[in-house]
Structure formats: structure tokens, C-alpha cells
């Protein structure tokens, strides 16, 4: 029964490729592979090809998208908190004064 053996072989092969995500393989990546690159992707540290694949996966995979949105929301909150801070105006004046005593000249 050759076709039975063939079917078994095909099933075995398919099982080997199966991803966590039944819709899966957006961008040619498994969910796990996409998750492994999430941080670097958001940091813009992946090469162009990988960045495109990870981007497609994260933006379109129903399982992974919340994870991406979650991470973005976290980073936005951290950035917002940091941007709120500016050097006090009298510090600028103080630094200029110190520099002038070392020969710096305002125009």
C-alpha cells in the first residue's frame, strides 16, 4: 500500500512545519519567530528584508497583533513621560555664564 506510506510521509512533513498559529506564517514567519524579533523590529534594528517580514507578520497576524499594540503602548507611555522634561531655563543661563568664563562668546 504505497499511498498509505506516502500519506504518512506527507502528514509527518506537515506536522513538522505546523506553527502555533493555524492561520499562520504571515511574512513567512511563525508567531514564535515574529515574537523573537519584536523588540528589534520596534527598535528599527533589523535588516530591510527581515524588517519587512516581521512587520507583515506582526501587523496582520490576529494572535500577534495585540502583543505588538501592547508593546507600543508601553513604549509610548515611557516616551511621553520622558519628553515632559526640559532643562530649567536658569540652567541654560548658568551654563552659558560658565562657558563665557572659559572664553565662549554669544554672538
Amino acid at each position, binding site marked *: 500500500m504505497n499511498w498509505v506510506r506516502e500519506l504518512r510521509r506527507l502528514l509527518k512533513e506537515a506536522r513538522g512545519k505546523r506553527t502555533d498559529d493555524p492561520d499562520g506564517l504571515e511574512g513567512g514567519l511563525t508567531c*514564535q519567530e515574529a*515574537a*523573537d524579533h*519584536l*523588540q*528589534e523590529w520596534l*527598535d*528599527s*534594528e533589523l535588516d530591510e528584508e527581515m524588517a519587512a517580514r516581521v512587520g507583515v507578520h506582526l501587523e496582520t497576524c490576529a494572535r500577534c497583533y*495585540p*502583543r505588538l*499594540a*501592547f*508593546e*507600543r*503602548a*508601553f*513604549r*509610548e*507611555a*515611557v*516616551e*511621553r*513621560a*520622558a519628553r*515632559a*522634561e*526640559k*532643562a*530649567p531655563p536658569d*540652567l*541654560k543661563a*548658568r*551654563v552659558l555664564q*560658565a*562657558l563665557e568664563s*572659559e572664553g*565662549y*562668546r*554669544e*554672538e
Partner: protein
Amino acid sequence: MSPPTDAERTFREEVLPEIDAIYRFALRLAGSPAEAQDLVQETFLRAWKNRDAYTPGTRARSWLFTICRNVFLRGEERRRRHEEIVREQSGQAAGASEAATGDGEPDHAVFMAVKDRDPEGTFWAGVVDERILAAIDGLPGDFREVVVLSDLEGLSYREVAQVVGVPEGTVKSRLFRGRQILKKELHEVALEAGLLDRDAPEPRTSEGGEP
């Protein structure tokens, strides 16, 4: 009065405008506004004295971060005790490191804890600035500086590596680990603030589509 030299003009146009970024970095390094202001002043004085070492058109900010960090580290003896504590903490944290992402990894922990209640993390936006900055200040020093340079000031791994003087791989692992610690801390803050319902039963409705 002689006209300004090129180095002077560059200093005025490229270096001085970075004072806000340097102040933010100094504040996170030093911990108090008074110390941060001294640190900023010393940083710009040293930058001015070494102005010929700066190449116009390169990232003045990275150059200043490096100077600022060196000035800070030189004052280290004065706060040796504080630094000892920091190093102890980073030792502990490093033991739990080897950070990547993925199931079961700590990076996943907070997401997994809230995914049924707030899968897209809208609660993060409700955490007040002061608590976020306090959590950053509470990070062990090694982690804090890479998180600040990367997440607050937008430097690339390579730029952070140059400022801190460690390989890019080290930057990456410290950064990922630092973010994990931050997430855990701020998740606690969010629970305390009632931004997430601590004891909410995990909803298991058919809406979620999960079997």
C-alpha cells in the same frame, strides 16, 4: 573682537541646543535635579574645552552623552555606597537575564497577565509620568543608562554601545532586560492605581474566539 571660529559656530549651532536631552540623561544618571544641573554644566564645559574633538555634522548628542557619562562616573567615589547597592542589584538582575522574548520568558509575563483584560495594553497610557520616571530611576545603573539612551533619547544599539563602551550584544540584552523590569514595576503601579482590576475573573467568553 575677532569673528567666531568654525569650532565656536559649530558649538553654538550643534552642541548647545542639546541641553534638554543632556539634562534628561543627567537627571536619570544623578537622580536629583541639583546634581543633574552640576553634571550638565560640567559636561558642557568639558565639551567646550574639547570642541576641536567634535566633528561637525555627526551626532552632537552622542558625543555629549559620552562626556556626561564620563563626568558622572568620575564622581563615583563620592557615592560609592550608592553604587555598591546598584551593582548588587544589577548582579541579581543579570542572573535572571538571557532575555529574548517568547512563551515563558519574563518579557512575556506582563502581557500574559493582562492579555484577557487589556490585550492591547491601553492601561499603559494611564500610568502617570512621575511613576514611570521613578521606575526608570529605580533600575540598576547598567540597565538604566541603556534604557534612557535608547527608549528616551532614541539612540541606535550601535550609538548606545559607543557611549557606554560595551558591545552591541550587551546593549541589547541590558535593554531588553531593563524593559522587562520596567514593565513589571509599572504593571504593579497600574494595579495599585486601579487601572487594571487585580482580581477580575479571566473572561472566557466565546467573543475571544479562543477554544
